[in-house]
């Protein structure tokens, strides 16, 4: 017998939790076995203003990465790569802390309207 069951009674099978599940199928004590799975929950639709990166001005200091509460600034090899628009809530902190003003905030409505207009032109 093992000293303690690491699954705490869950056994070998772990099904993904879905809204149509029966309460008996849920994990015991509400345990969650997959670390960081909130990444699959998208909070990007909360956003009313959108940060847009100005590539030419950026000096890749990554201060925006440091001050993002949602870990929504993706950096690769110590350089700014892109925004994670699936999780960015549009708080505007990155644009404010940027020392060279390389991030501009645009209204989501405005962007939507422009996209629609360009679609209609075609």
């Amino acid at each position, binding site marked *: 017998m093992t000293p303690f069951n690491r699954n705490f009674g869950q056994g070998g099978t772990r099904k993904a939790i879905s809204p149509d599940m029966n309460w008996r199928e849920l994990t015991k004590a509400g345990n969650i076995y997959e670390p960081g799975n*909130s990444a699959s*929950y*998208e*909070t990007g639709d909360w956003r009313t203003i959108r940060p847009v990166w100005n590539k030419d001005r950026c000096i890749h200091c990554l201060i925006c*990465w440091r001050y*993002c*509460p*949602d*870990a929504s600034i993706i950096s690769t090899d110590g350089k700014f790569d892109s925004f994670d628009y699936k999780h960015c809530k549009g708080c505007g902190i990155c644009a404010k802390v940027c020392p060279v003003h390389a991030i501009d905030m645009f209204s989501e409505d405005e962007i939507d309207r422009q996209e629609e207009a360009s679609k209609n032109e075609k």
Partner: protein
Amino acid sequence: MATLKELAKVEERFVGGHRLCAGCGHGISVRMVLNAAEDANVVVGCATGCLEVASTIYPYTAWNCSFIHSAFENAGATISGVEAAYKSLKKQGKIDKDFKFVAFGGDGGTYDIGFQSLSGAMERGHNIVYVCLDNEAYMNTGIQRSSATPMGADTTTSPAGKVVPGKQQPRKDLTAIMAAHNIPYAAQTAISNWQDVHRKAKKAFDVEGPAFINILSPCPRGWRYNTPDIVELVKKAVETRFWPMYEVENGKWKLNYKPKKYVPIEEFLKPQGRFRHLFAPGNEHVIKAIQKEVDERWLALLERCGETPELPPK
């Protein structure tokens, strides 16, 4: 000191998709503290509060590491239990990896409700780090006053009206109380200076025995300021000496930042909606009382740190 370029390569332990408000100070503070653990295995414990309810909504978790939550009042006891169990298992040879233990609590779960459990954990000398994310009220349940709420603040249980101008009592100085436990490391810091947060978090993780860090973590809803201005606001809190940055290492007090100029407390109060009533005619005496409180605490702190107790030049 590691540069941001190097730190950005450390694995993210608090991922996106959590439901903290846009621009919440907690997200920034937690990411900074956990980033300082670098490659270590981390176990996080949480007191009930904004951070816990927003990051672990079933069946999602924003924690990319082990996480435990038990109740509001026992974050200190929970994390010390985890640490004690780990120590025992390690002794029996059932775990070979090394772990670091960190607990996060809001000011309600640290200053008030979780205080006895935290005090006990510190006294027993567990090898843990306790981080208090101080947003100065019970924000999760709708902005009720806590013992961390500053004097004059308008909250739902200390509402500002015609007779009473907000909270009547000054705030509790928790970092000093924690330092009085004679723990190896206690510090107070603010996110406006990320180097300071990183250095203190790293030190707290490295130190053998209990460590305590108090971080000022603004709440856009409760403080009612313009959300993107968070860093500027925290900077003002430090410049006005409302939130001094200091550390206490093995009983030795050290001041980390000394403002060069005397900045009146109004600079910090003005951008916040919770202090708006103080600027109405007839409430000048409250601002004066806050200023007096801040100055007195600053002088006492300077004395403790072994510096000449004098206010910065005007």
